[in-house]
């Protein structure tokens, strides 16, 4: 087994070396298509990150009746925090709210016109799932102490709809892209195999079995898939971190994906796609060519 594997690997290496320009071209093509694939993955990761970011900024304001006492307020806070889909509950004292309001609207000459703080005490509730915002708001309205609820309704619905549809579009695009990458890689390998069709026929005529012919091609496919994947990853790692650096420098508020887990998953995915398509392409192409000669 191991001897066979070594033998086939050395055959594959010889073949790669001797096919020269053809191999360089196919590795280049695979690299390039994996880079495009990776760029797409990075873009879609960033778009979903962005919509998550916007969703996370959505909040519900719960305005309390002026009669609500401090211990009631504390109890409410605990109850709200215990609700599913609620991520954060923050109490906003009416004085703080009024100060904030006045800071935001300096043009309104409130001091001269308004005698007292017109704002109520409130809770700011941040959800973990923005899609639930409307239903939770309705639910909150039912509480005794609650005077009114403000739920950023329209915007929330829009962001939710947008994030749902970009997610669907993203899935469709990534599938399409995966398929495109598959086709390009498999086709490229197919062309290199077709170019060696005569050699395959000769091998069959002098007594080689299907697997004897197939294995070196499969290992070759594996190797050029790995090479293409590694080159693509190198390009993407440097390209993306350069991009992130420049972007952060100039628009630091923008939420880019740069946690290592997501990125490493993407890079791993690229490597897997490269190698598996290399193997699959080689398997498919050789099988087609080999069949006719027995």
């Amino acid at each position, binding site marked *: 087994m191991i001897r066979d594997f070594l033998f086939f690997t050395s055959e594959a290496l010889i*073949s790669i070396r001797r096919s020269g320009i053809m191999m360089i071209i196919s590795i280049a093509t695979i690299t390039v298509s994996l880079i495009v694939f990776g760029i797409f993955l990075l873009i879609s990761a960033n778009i979903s990150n962005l919509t998550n970011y916007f969703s996370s900024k959505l909040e519900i304001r719960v305005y309390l009746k002026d009669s609500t006492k401090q211990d009631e307020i504390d109890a409410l806070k605990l109850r709200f925090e215990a609700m599913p889909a609620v991520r954060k509950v923050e109490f906003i004292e009416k004085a703080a709210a009024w100060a904030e309001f006045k800071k935001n609207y300096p043009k309104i000459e409130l001091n001269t016109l308004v005698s007292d703080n017109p704002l109520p005490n409130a809770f700011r509730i941040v959800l973990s799932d923005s899609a639930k915002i409307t239903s939770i708001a309705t639910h909150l309205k039912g509480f005794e102490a609650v005077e009114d609820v403000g739920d950023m309704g329209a915007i929330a619905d829009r962001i939710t709809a947008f994030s749902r549809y970009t997610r669907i579009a993203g899935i469709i695009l990534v599938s399409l892209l995966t398929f495109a990458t598959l086709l390009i890689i498999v086709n490229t390998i197919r062309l290199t195999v077709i170019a060696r069709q005569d050699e395959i026929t000769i091998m069959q*005529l002098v007594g080689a*079995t299907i697997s004897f012919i197939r294995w070196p091609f499969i290992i070759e496919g594996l190797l050029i898939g790995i090479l293409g994947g590694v080159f693509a990853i190198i390009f993407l790692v440097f390209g993306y971190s350069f991009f992130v650096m420049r972007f952060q420098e100039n628009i630091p508020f923008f939420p880019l994906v740069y946690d290592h887990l997501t990125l490493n998953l993407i890079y791993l995915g690229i490597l897997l796609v490269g190698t598996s398509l290399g193997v699959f392409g080689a398997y498919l192409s050789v099988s087609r060519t080999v069949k006719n000669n027995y």
Partner: protein
Amino acid sequence: MIRVKNVRKVYPNGFVALDGVDLHISRNEFVYLVGQSGAGKSTLLNMLYKAETPTSGDIYIDNISLSGLAPKQVPYLRRSIGVIFQDYKLLPRRTVYENVAFALRVMHFSRSRIRRQVTQVLELVGLQQKMHNYPSELSGGEQQRICIARAIVNNPPVLLADEPTGSLDPDTSWEIMQLLSKINARQTTVIVATHNKAIVDDIRKRVVAVENGRIIRDEQLGLYNP
């Protein structure tokens, strides 16, 4: 050993290359296949190692029907039949050594045994010094001799030679034919399709003449021309 039974071969384009061919070749026989260009010699040989399949009729080798042979079995059939192809069929991206070794590698011979047998057979055809060249770096006759070396390197029980001296000078041709005779003497059935009148008439063996896809003559110790 080899039995060709009422074989007819119609190529996909409708051309009838062989028709009603019956032939029986015993173990260790040496047979010349002669006939004009386009008579059907190569077609007949190609069917013996299942590079072509008969349109009707069947071929038996050691009483095994080739038409009944599973695709998986074909490589093993081919390993027991050395073939000197009319158009050499060398692997262009392999050196001379690797081309010859390939026939042994498919049989999983050990590396040292491969080296021994390959160098030996390259010496036989006089091409040790071209061992590390690629086929494209060889003269026509040298390529033909590599093909011969590959066909005989694993001592197959059957040897099919399709025009094995077409690119060789008379002296080298003579040597090669002597080599084939020697191989035949070592328990190998040999079938040689050839146009080399001088050799057929000199090294007298059984002669089978093909014309327009039919066997028109089958003579022990025959001459090239009747």
